């Protein structure tokens, strides 16, 4: 192979279009005659719907349709429970429109379609809904209290699920342990907040019986299958496309958001295209959120600082519904052991309903919580035994020769939590060098003499990535030589058009720019799962690799026939197919594609040239002999990992705290990341940067505040603060590469990694900066006022 593209920092083919304003986001698609929808949402966190009178709204000029639950007929069904689990004994999912009761502020109650969005929103004002407000559960403490009001009248104790896992024999170990500590730690809600809100455009073509939906989603294929079932259409008569998607971070992997059913319902009913675009206020109250957990943790360690057992009991806030089952708390439970040799572990969680926006995974998906708990434990052991914080971690790390390491838990995919590879000490050593860790105490001491509070914090994590069940891919060379690749995942900024092209180009002897990728379009590839759980690059990337390997083999076979040579003597390089040692006589890939098609006529320049070349004629016998497979230079392959592969990393930061205001600023931030073999280091580093920024937001700025009425009181960008360029520091990134033995190219996932250790290291650094005060952070997220309050609490209690 002339050039290997895998591993190179190839510039993105996505960029020129996006930079010119020629992106194709859902709201950019303008079909003639499109009508526009708006959703009437519940103003109450819990209420009985006494009456809905849509009458006046229907009379407003320009209004085409006003739908309430009773207008939906057979479509009025709860959304499917995506991932059932035996421990989830009381699952509840949402109706497309609320029928008798609403369970959170923002729940959809009515749907209006009008000439434009302005008129649709006018019509919302004219729908008269009479509510009888009911008691509200707005936090975990109230949800779990004795005789608490019920979020769902038929779910006793508000308990959706209760799940226990045990590894080893924690009871015996606790009974004999020299040191035991109990602590309570909490993590409050945040949200993904992609810059593009959700949206859908639906078109019904009656003459074809064809429904097409463009949706800002991370999982178009499952949605296609679901819509076909809901509307009783053959699957091939429903096309779902995820066009350019302006960020997702987990909140867009969901089926179904109500609008994804209501919009096609209206389009079919009206026979016209209908578009619904979520606004930011709606995004705050109707797009899924995450993070809320309350942990009571107990841990035992020996005199050397070795953690010997953990008991963690936690409550998980799932909001009003469980569309995603109990995936998030399972990931928390399985991620807690992290990179450490924890052999005795009791994990128990209870999933509680609250009258809040439903919960589904948001970048990190239960992991930042787990890492926060475990890294707080490591810091506390260090403090109690007066051992350096990095040294404590080193004493507990799983060693490189101990892989595969079976944690002993069942992971979110139903498979084992079995670490495939890793080298945690190598990462920590790199990080210490990047931060000049050993010299920090001197720097800290000097700063203190000048009245400045500097602190250093570290956070280690292991992340289950690349879960199954599978993805597939098609690679096809057309007669003009263009190579089309397709897969069922989507990109929301992960650069698949570039990185997947690198994988295919390596097999076909081409440049990445020669490979044209289509993804997230059920008409291009109709099997697949979606982009979530840091899985797309590994799982779909491996499928693309396998398909490209097959196309390469087929090209060799076809060319071998034409050149009367052996297939193993054929090479592909620089867009040419030729016999090794005789590169002057070559075919283009397009010519091989033409020859791979037994049809006896072809068109275009490649075909004309092919006619003039003196090549062997067709072999006798059938045109497609056994073993030759289908016609064309094309292959479809699937990749199904045996279980998750486990990426890892360690981040560290030096911060400065102003004890007078509680404000924290970053002096330095470093990240060492191991996602196995890296396809494109520029892209991976970009993913880490973005993850860290979201992590900093989630550690210090972003906290959704629900009041006792279940209203989010900071539901705007004026009040819920996303970090800006002024708050996010420069981040130095380095890599450790321990290839995954599970996938053919050795990759592991990278998308979520950046966000995961940030709350942990932030707490670690604040504790360190304020160590003269004796502060220990046990909650996330913080914000300046809260840091100030915590300091005041300590000062008044001492």
């Amino acid at each position: 192979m002339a050039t290997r593209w895998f591993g190179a920092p190839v510039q993105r083919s996505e960029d020129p279009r996006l930079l010119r304003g020629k992106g194709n986001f859902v709201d950019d698609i303008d079909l003639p005659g499109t009508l526009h929808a708006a959703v009437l949402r519940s103003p109450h966190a819990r209420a009985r719907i006494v009456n809905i009178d849509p009458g006046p709204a229907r009379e407003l000029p320009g209004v085409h349709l006003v739908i309430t639950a009773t207008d939906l007929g057979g479509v009025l069904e709860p959304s499917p429970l995506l991932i059932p689990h035996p421990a989830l004994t009381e699952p509840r999912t949402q109706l497309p429109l609320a029928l008798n009761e609403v369970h959170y502020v923002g729940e959809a109650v009515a749907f209006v379609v009008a000439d434009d969005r302005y008129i649709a929103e006018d019509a919302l004002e004219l729908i008269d809904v009479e509510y009888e407000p009911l008691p509200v559960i707005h936090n975990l403490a109230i949800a779990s209290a004795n005789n608490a009001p019920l979020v769902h009248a038929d779910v006793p104790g508000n308990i959706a699920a209760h799940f226990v896992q045990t590894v080893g024999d924690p009871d015996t170990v606790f009974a004999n342990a020299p040191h035991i500590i109990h602590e309570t730690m909490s993590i409050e809600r945040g949200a993904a907040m992609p810059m593009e809100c959700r949206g859908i455009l639906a078109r019904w073509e009656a003459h074809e019986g064809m429904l097409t939906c463009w949706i800002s989603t991370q999982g178009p294929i499952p949605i296609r299958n679901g819509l076909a079932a809901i509307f009783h259409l053959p699957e091939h008569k429903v096309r779902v496309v995820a066009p350019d998607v302006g960020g997702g971070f987990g909140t867009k992997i969901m089926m179904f958001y109500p609008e994804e059913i209501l919009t096609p319902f209206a389009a079919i009913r009206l026979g016209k295209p209908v578009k619904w675009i979520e606004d930011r206020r709606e995004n705050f109250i109707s797009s899924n959120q995450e993070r809320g957990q309350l942990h009571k943790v107990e841990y035992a360690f020996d005199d050397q600082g070795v953690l010997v057992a953990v008991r963690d009991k936690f409550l998980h806030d799932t909001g009003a519904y469980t569309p995603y089952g109990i995936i998030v708390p399972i990931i928390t439970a399985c991620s807690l052991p992290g990179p450490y040799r924890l052999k005795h572990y009791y994990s128990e969680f209870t999933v509680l309903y609250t009258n809040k926006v439903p919960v589904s995974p948001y970048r990190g998906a239960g992991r930042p919580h787990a890492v926060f708990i475990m890294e707080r434990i490591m810091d506390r052991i260090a403090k109690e035994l007066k051992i350096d914080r990095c040294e404590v971690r080193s004493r507990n790390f799983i060693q490189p020769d101990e892989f595969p390491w079976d944690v002993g838990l069942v992971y979110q995919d139903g498979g084992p939590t079995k670490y495939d590879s890793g080298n945690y000490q190598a990462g920590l050593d790199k990080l210490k060098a990047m931060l000049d860790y050993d010299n920090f105490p001197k720097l800290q001491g000097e700063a203190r003499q000048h009245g400045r509070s500097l602190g250093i914090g570290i956070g280690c994590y292991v992340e289950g990535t690349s879960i199954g069940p599978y993805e597939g891919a098609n690679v096809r060379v057309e007669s003009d030589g263009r190579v089309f690749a397709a897969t069922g995942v989507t990109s929301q900024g992960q650069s698949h058009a570039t990185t997947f092209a690198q994988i295919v180009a390596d097999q076909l002897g081409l440049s990445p720019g020669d490979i044209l990728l289509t993804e997230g379009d059920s008409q291009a590839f109709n099997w697949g799962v979606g982009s979530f759980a840091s899985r797309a690059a590994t799982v779909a990337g491996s499928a693309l690799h396998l398909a490209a390997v097959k196309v390469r083999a087929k090209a060799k076979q076809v060319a071998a026939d034409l050149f009367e040579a052996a297939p193993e003597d054929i090479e592909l390089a620089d867009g040419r197919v030729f016999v090794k040692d005789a590169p002057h006589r070559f075919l283009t890939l397009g010519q091989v594609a033409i020859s791979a098609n037994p049809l006896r006529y072809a068109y275009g320049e490649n075909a004309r040239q092919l006619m003039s070349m003196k090549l062997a004629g067709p072999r006798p016998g059938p045109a497609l002999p056994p073993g030759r497979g289908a016609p064309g230079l094309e292959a479809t392959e699937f990749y199904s990992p045996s279980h998750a592969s486990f990426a890892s990393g360690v981040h560290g930061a030096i911060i400065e705290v102003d004890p007078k205001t509680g404000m924290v600023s970053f002096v330095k931030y470093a990240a060492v990341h191991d996602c196995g073999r890296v396809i494109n280091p520029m892209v991976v580093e970009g993913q880490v940067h973005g993850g860290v920024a979201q992590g900093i937001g989630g550690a210090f700025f972003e906290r959704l505040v629900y009041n006792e009425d279940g209203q989010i009181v900071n539901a705007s960008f004026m009040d819920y603060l996303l970090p800006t360029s002024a708050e996010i520091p420069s981040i130095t990134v380095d890599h450790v590469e321990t290839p995954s033995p599970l996938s053919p190219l050795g990759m592991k996932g990278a998308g979520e990694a950046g966000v995961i250790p940030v709350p942990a290291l932030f707490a670690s650094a604040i504790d360190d900066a304020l160590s003269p005060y004796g502060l220990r952070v046990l909650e996330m997220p913080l914000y300046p006022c809260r840091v100030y309050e915590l300091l005041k609490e300590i000062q008044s209690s001492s």
Partner: protein
Amino acid sequence: MQEQEDTSTFSEENLISVTVNGHLYEQRVPVRMLLSDFLRHELHLTGTHVGCEHGVCGCCTVLLNGEAVRSCLMLAVQADGMVLTTIEGMAGTNSELHPIQQAFQEKHGLQCGFCTPGIIMSVHAMLHENASPSEEEIRHELSGNLCRCTGYQNIVEAVKLAAERLRESHKEVK
């Protein structure tokens, strides 16, 4: 039940004349139509994105008489008689990207690309005011544009590179 509003004024339209990316448009628009909606839905210049509709995220940033403004905080009728530049007007008619756009590609200053047009417009205005911004100035000036993907680092690097190249090209012109 609340009183029904008189909706007749909502359909009131005004004739406006605006120059966008060098083209003069004379059009009747509803008085309540946002400038961002006018650009996107009436002129089909969909590169200007809408991320919050309350003036914080900066996705809808355009140049109004040369200054960066948020098109979601203005009505189309308020732009009457004014000169606008949107992202579609940045690269010119030839195939080459504007140096700011080029720098964003080279430094991987975008991921999903949704906030990018607004950021490019802000950077354009920033570099017009200050051809040699320090990193601190760049970060301060960019703080009116939210990006959820990149962590801003590569955007800052792209601005530095673009500033350097623009200074070089101005020298050559002189």
